[in-house]
């Protein structure tokens, strides 16, 4: 009788063990991941483009929904000291991994050192941290895409015309990203049109000033076709307005950088880059997908957490967003 009871107990325990192991197998381990964002100050544009810190954070919130992740969010506020404090807090919170988006190289080196001491892996965003994998925009490649698009358009549509080219925006921005974009733009244009050297028109980061600067340039460039590469979408929209005011829409095309929400929209928003607006003088804008960073970066973080090898650097796959592909790249769902 006792033996029978023992057998039954063993059977029950074994059954429970099988059920438990099945449950464990069905539910993947959850990880605590911290994301320290560059700057969530309302109105602050990120890395010279039209995206905000809120756009980036939202992408992490959305992308983490179906992942075994419990997210903790920090705002570095564009401040190196704050970034260091956030990293210390992440260490004391014993997170499994920190995703760090901070532009200060010195602070990044210290953050890398402290996290290494704590045994917590780090994944860097756009600014490298010694020893940490990096996810970053490829600013030269993005610039090159825009330069090539302008050059190809000119070769196809204005083969016998006198051309001038301009790079419009915050060209004096000391950041490495803007310098790299200008380098790429120039390279891309010269690949298509080797004799063309773009002039730089400085808006100092103000869209209204961008319109004024371009208007002056247009007035000096009569009987020429003008290729305009803008460094952000707000400048592109201001440039378009200046071209229209000057009555030069048949002489000018624009390609921009960023492809933020101000230039493309949902099915009923009829924004500038829209399938129903294929004749726009804004040919397109190179996508940086800051609003999709969470979807790109969290899978890398998960691979790190599962002990898999990840490449030392993963670059954004930039593409030119135009009327032809905007709904493929950004499927519209916000239908207001």
């Amino acid at each position, binding site marked *: 009788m006792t033996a029978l009871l023992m057998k039954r107990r063993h059977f029950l325990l074994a059954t429970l063990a099988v059920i438990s192991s099945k449950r464990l197998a069905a539910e993947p381990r959850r990880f605590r991941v911290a994301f320290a964002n560059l700057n969530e100050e309302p109105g602050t544009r990120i890395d010279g483009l039209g995206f905000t810190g809120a756009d980036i954070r939202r*992408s992490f*919130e*959305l*992308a983490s*929904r*179906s992942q075994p992740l419990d997210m903790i969010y920090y705002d570095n506020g564009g401040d190196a000291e704050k970034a260091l404090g956030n990293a210390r807090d992440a260490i004391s919170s014993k997170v499994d991994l920190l995703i760090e988006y901070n532009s200060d190289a010195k602070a990044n080196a210290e953050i890398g050192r402290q996290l290494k001491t704590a045994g917590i892996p780090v994944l860097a965003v756009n600014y490298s941290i010694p020893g940490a994998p990096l996810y970053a925009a490829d600013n030269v490649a993005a610039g090159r895409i825009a330069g090539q698009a302008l050059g190809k358009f000119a070769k196809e549509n204005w083969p016998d015309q006198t051309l001038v080219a301009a790079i419009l925006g915050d060209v004096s921005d000391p950041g490495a990203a803007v310098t790299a974009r200008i380098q790429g733009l120039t390279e891309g244009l010269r690949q298509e049109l080797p004799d063309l050297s773009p002039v730089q028109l400085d808006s100092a980061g103000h869209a209204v000033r961008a319109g004024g600067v371009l208007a002056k340039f247009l007035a000096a460039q009569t009987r020429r076709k003008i290729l305009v590469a803008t460094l952000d979408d707000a400048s592109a929209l201001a440039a378009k307005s200046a071209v229209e005011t000057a009555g030069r829409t048949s002489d000018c095309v624009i390609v921009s950088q960023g492809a933020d929400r101000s230039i493309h929209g*949902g*099915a*009923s928003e009829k924004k500038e880059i829209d399938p129903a607006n294929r004749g726009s003088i804004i040919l397109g804008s190179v996508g940086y997908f800051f609003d*999709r960073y969470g*979807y790109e970066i969290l899978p890398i973080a998960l691979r790190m957490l599962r002990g898999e090898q990840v490449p030392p650097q993963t670059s954004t796959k930039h593409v030119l967003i135009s009327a032809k592909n905007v*709904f493929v*790249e950004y*499927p*519209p*769902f*916000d*239908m*207001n």
Partner: protein
Amino acid sequence: MKHGAIIGIAFSALALFGTFGTAHAQADCKTLVKPSPFGPDDQIGATNRITPAVTKAAAAEIQSGAVISMANNLVDGVPLFGTRFTKTVLTSATLVPGAELGKNRLTFMEDTYLSQSHVGTHIDGMGHIGILDCYYNQTPIGKFVTQNYLKKLGLENLKSFATRGVIIDMVKVFQDAGKLKTNPACQTPCLDGGTVISEADIQAGLKMYNVTLREGDAVFIHTGWGDLFKQFPAQNANYNKAEPGIGKAAAAWLAAQKVVLVGTDTWAVEVIPSEDAMEAFPVHVFLLTDNGIHIIENVRTDLIAAEAASSKRATFFLSMTVPKAVGTTGTFVNIEAIR
């Protein structure tokens, strides 16, 4: 002026051909869309599952005869997707003194209802969603499109929806799990926009009222988001901006249970924004195009959810009829739960 008008019409026609005439080259539908489980000639999808036996078994759900509405009023001003519109016009000419008919002075009125078909509480048919020009059952729909209607996959083909309905109260599931994050614009508890409803959530909702899904069941999910619909027009923008809904895993699980339809108190049934930012309405494709399972949107679920909570019974006899509107892709419907 006349010339201008004619030229304008000609240009409009050209623009129309430019837009639709060259829409898509014929794609290989056998690689893009799954074959129907109901055979190569099927046009009616999961309504095949509503057999006489299924309807008879569902009739056992009628115990008290109480009827609970599950449709929202169809009225101008409710939230509409994208560029859709409604406009109701009442014709009451014979009410004007002297316009009566006959010595018995008969008068009459009627309505003109200008609207797209996918408005209010409505059903998505098999002709609604595809991948390129490939629709349900690997149908190369381009061959069956006319200017006015579809020559295949129209709603007129559907069988009856006389089956068992099941309400799943997702608000309660999330409350019980301590994870309800409501939207401040909701006057009653609701799941927030972007909340993914998982397979486990669906199963928890069924377990709450001890329901096991049967083949041919009609599944309705109460998310509370319909609260914003009821506040029209004040919350129309919020309602359309996002929504809670089932993710792809939950859709796959429901399809595996061989349900006939999935309905919710939201405008798209599936979670918006989608789980994958690069995909457009993937659950629509999975349910309608690949599995022939109908989708019902903007369902009024609060009344039946409350009834289920008070009676601890989540099943009912579904009364929903779909007009035999030839060659259409969807239509507004009236839905009632009979208990």
